[in-house]
């Protein structure tokens, strides 16, 4: 189990960041998307290889109106 955007998720440990983006229907080349795991930025180049650990806190962020 991991925590995805503050919610318990059925994503299992070992899945990649890319897999999570796929579940959210986000294209991997999407401009305006960023991912943090446990408070650290996961660079775009690592999305395909970064495997999530059990209880990882994953934040998937995108552009919103603001400022």
């Amino acid at each position: 189990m991991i925590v995805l955007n503050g919610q318990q998720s059925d994503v299992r440990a070992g899945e990649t960041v890319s897999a999570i983006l796929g579940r959210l229907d986000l294209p991997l080349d999407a401009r305006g998307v960023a991912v943090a795991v446990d408070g650290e930025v996961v660079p775009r180049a690592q999305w395909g290889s970064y495997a999530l650990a059990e209880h990882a806190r994953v934040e998937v962020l995108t552009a919103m109106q603001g400022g």
Partner: protein
Amino acid sequence: MRETIDTPADAARNGAPASPADASPVSGAAAAAAAAAAAADELTIAGRTLRSRLLLGTGGFPSLALLADAIAASGCELVTVALRRVDPAARGSLIDVLTDAGVELLPNTAGCHTARDAVLTARLAREAFATDWIKLEVIGDEDTLLPDAPELLRAAEELVDDGFVVLPYTTDDPVLARRLADIGCAAVMPLGSPIGSGMGIRNPYNIALIRERVSVPVVLDAGVGTASDAALAMELGCDAVLAASAISRAQDPVRMAAAMRAAVHAGRLARTAGRIPRRLYATASTPDEGLPDLGPG
């Protein structure tokens, strides 16, 4: 006896234009040339040239369509965006709208209360939007949304060291603004009054002092409520104005965007034209010479 009630800042401004680029005496046939020069009056921040001195905050627009129309009416080239959790139910893509509008993005760190959160958010924004530019906000109080000065300085220093082009949202404190400029911020963005308050520029003397004390561009952020506030900011010497709520929450945002565009332009022209000194007593604009003797009344 005539008395001036100008501040030293006013006197300095009235005595000499703020910079050689500002000096353009206008006379007769030169007016057209001066107008053309003013039209090309560009702003450069960290090597990026902007023809518009109005920056737009994208927050608060009731729809993306209205945002797109307001961008067009404002003539702005740089708009702020925030980073938030992906909402699977969200409709329409803000990024697509902004890309279609042809504007550059200035991501912000809105909602961050610590240097750590702001730095991490800036790094995420760099990843998301492929830009080193960041409007740095570190909020110290929930009710006023005023900046937390020590955290702001800490975050700014770290981000400058990390290669970011940092535009910090700051209080109207000239000393803090100078500290931010000294550590390498590309511009400073003092508030006129609290975010979204529409209270205008509460301390114009401080804004004028900031303009005198730092050499980087000064962008008035926060507090603008209507067009005259934006014009005043430019008259005080600000290099640009960022407006968000004043436009997005106006009854007619597109019309207000056009008003802000005109106000920023007018204020900039007035600033570079060099205003007359304020005086307590009248100064006749019509000469006394040649006044007829009309006899006893």
